[in-house]
């Protein structure tokens, strides 16, 4: 999982109480959530990372997820400038709250637990008073929520580790993270003995936000993924598949599977897949894990020695 996405995945886990994470926000009544919501503000448009809400008291939390130590001034001010009117103008009020006469809109900053001190300092420096949620592999904290009716502070240890990687990558993820999900797509195509896979369809499969990505955003991402696949096809996985650029439609390419371990004699297939692991490990700059051999059972020992079993 791209480390940048730990805050958003942590927020989702707290909203759903899943994967060993406590449902602390779910337990406060936050029952529905949306991501990447476009919202207009008096200072310009923003894409709200996560919009979560609860009823009675009616509260919408606009969550800005920060992977680093700092909070960007301009972006933060756009978030806190959103009030009920601007949210309604953007058409982003959840249906269940559309008729609310007492709707509160509040920004909540979400970051990583290890960056909490820096994020608190950043908010102080910007003179922004807003709840701060930080998520970590063994602790989650929400602070400065007391001024917001319907939201309570918490500080809880948990055993859920890093949050479930529902969003393993996004369109801004670094190449190494994209390759980590792209190569399995090539392997899956080989296992299915597919001949051709469109790069665009791979992008659709690996990118959770594909459906709400703009046309230009999609084109740019397809092009980036195409370049990554071209590089792997010409490098560590040479001879396994090749990348073909297409002039139409949209200059989007495809990969052509040249060989597949799935087409080999079943007796040599496992070794061929393991060879693919080594190639992929080289492309990912990782060391392939080596199988640990177990002890021979007495049955196997007897079989190898040709002993009678009856």
């Amino acid at each position: 999982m791209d480390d940048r996405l730990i805050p958003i995945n942590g927020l989702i886990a707290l909203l759903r109480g899943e994967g060993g994470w406590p449902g602390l926000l779910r337990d406060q009544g936050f029952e529905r959530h949306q991501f990447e919501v476009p919202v207009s503000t008096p200072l310009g448009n923003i894409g709200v990372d996560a919009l979560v809400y609860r009823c009675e008291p009616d509260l919408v939390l606009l969550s800005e997820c920060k992977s680093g130590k700092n909070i960007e001034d301009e972006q933060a001010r756009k978030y806190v400038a959103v009030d009920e009117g601007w949210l309604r103008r953007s058409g982003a009020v959840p249906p269940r709250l559309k008729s609310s006469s007492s709707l509160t809109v509040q920004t909540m900053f979400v970051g990583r637990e290890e960056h909490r001190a820096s994020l608190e300092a950043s908010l102080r420096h910007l003179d922004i008073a807003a709840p701060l949620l930080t998520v970590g592999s063994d602790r989650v904290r929400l602070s400065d929520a007391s001024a917001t009716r319907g939201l309570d502070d918490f500080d809880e240890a948990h055993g859920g580790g890093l949050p479930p990687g529902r969003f393993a990558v996004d369109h801004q993820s670094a190449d190494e993270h994209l390759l980590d999900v792209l190569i399995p797509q090539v392997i899956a195509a080989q296992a299915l003995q597919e001949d051709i896979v469109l790069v665009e369809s791979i992008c659709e499969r690996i990118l959770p936000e594909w459906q709400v990505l703009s046309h230009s955003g999609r084109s740019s991402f397809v092009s980036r993924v195409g370049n990554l696949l071209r590089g792997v096809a010409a490098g560590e996985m040479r001879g396994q598949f090749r990348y073909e650029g297409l002039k139409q439609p949209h200059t989007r390419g495809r990969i052509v599977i040249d060989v597949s371990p799935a087409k080999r004699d079943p007796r040599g297939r496992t070794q061929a897949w393991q060879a693919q692991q080594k190639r992929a490990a080289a492309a990912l700059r990782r060391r392939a894990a080596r199988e640990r051999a177990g002890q021979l059972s007495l049955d196997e020992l007897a079989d190898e020695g040709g002993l009678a079993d009856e």
Partner: protein
Amino acid sequence: MREPRLGISMERQDLHNALTDAMRGTSPDLLDGRVAAGRVKSRLIEAHAPESSADGVAHLLRSVAEPAGLQVEALDDGLWALFGADDAFFVDSLNPRFWLMHSTTTADKLHRLLRRYLMPSARLDFAWFSGEQLRALEGEHRWVKSSFNSADLQPDSPGATVPRRWKVQVEGENPDELLALVSRSERYRAGAALTAVGSRLSEPGLGHADVAADYQGGFVASGTDFSLVSGLLWRTLDRYETYVLGLESSFRLGTVATEEMGLSVEGEVAYMEFPHEVEDLDALVANLFTCKEPFRLWAVPRESTEGQWEANAVDLHVGHPLRLEFTSKWMRVLLGSQTCGNTLARLVANLQHRFDARTHLPQPV
């Protein structure tokens, strides 16, 4: 329906009558002696035909049977015969996704056909029963088998918490009770996986049948009437279908565009708390992704933070991606929006036989 090349015309009931004859020890006059007298072996198979039609099933069957030297013949609606020089295998694809295969050939020949030709296809897989499902096998249980081998996933385990290997067969009155007794022992409970069950079915007027079923969807039957066996097989198939579809409906993850132009997330993360803490997590991770049977998982795992691993994996059985996350205390499985539920069923059943018999996947409320 195409004209059968062997010149036979057969409806499903005719097949059941022939298999009844075989069970009773008389060789049915069928397919020039390719259906021998003897026990009927059946397999529950999960199939993904290229299209949901008779043509799709025929295409898939031919693609796996012809390399094995078998001809494929349509017999009845959704009923097929695969026959070679000496043997015949019948495939009932009335349920297009979950098939039943029947044969009276030797166990070795059936095993070879399945392992060498059918299961290597990314479109076919066994059914993988959990211990709970096997325990629910109909009839009066007369025999249970428990086997366990932690050498694959915990090769250096001293065997103190989890037995290294275990093979037990219990026959007699209420054999489940003895296994339940072992399951309560702290020393042995991790190894007390239910591998196979033998059950006696009887019905006045129809006679009786003895059926043994294993956790890989295999059945062997003897007795006086195949219709008793057939009823059990179809009801087991229905329950297994409900189980797999339930896994897909609960655990497939995805995103959906909302009216407000945003995204909502769907599906649940499958989460299994390990019944015992893993002593050597590195070994478990290394040995789970060896691409070998029975897991057949491909991945290049990485340690995302100290003591936590993640793997963007591919289930080589079916060519579907999935993501797994581990610590020494739990495992999470994140299925793709199209990943087959049988992938999760296989993982659970094999963890019960290779990691801890108490491994359990809670279903969302």
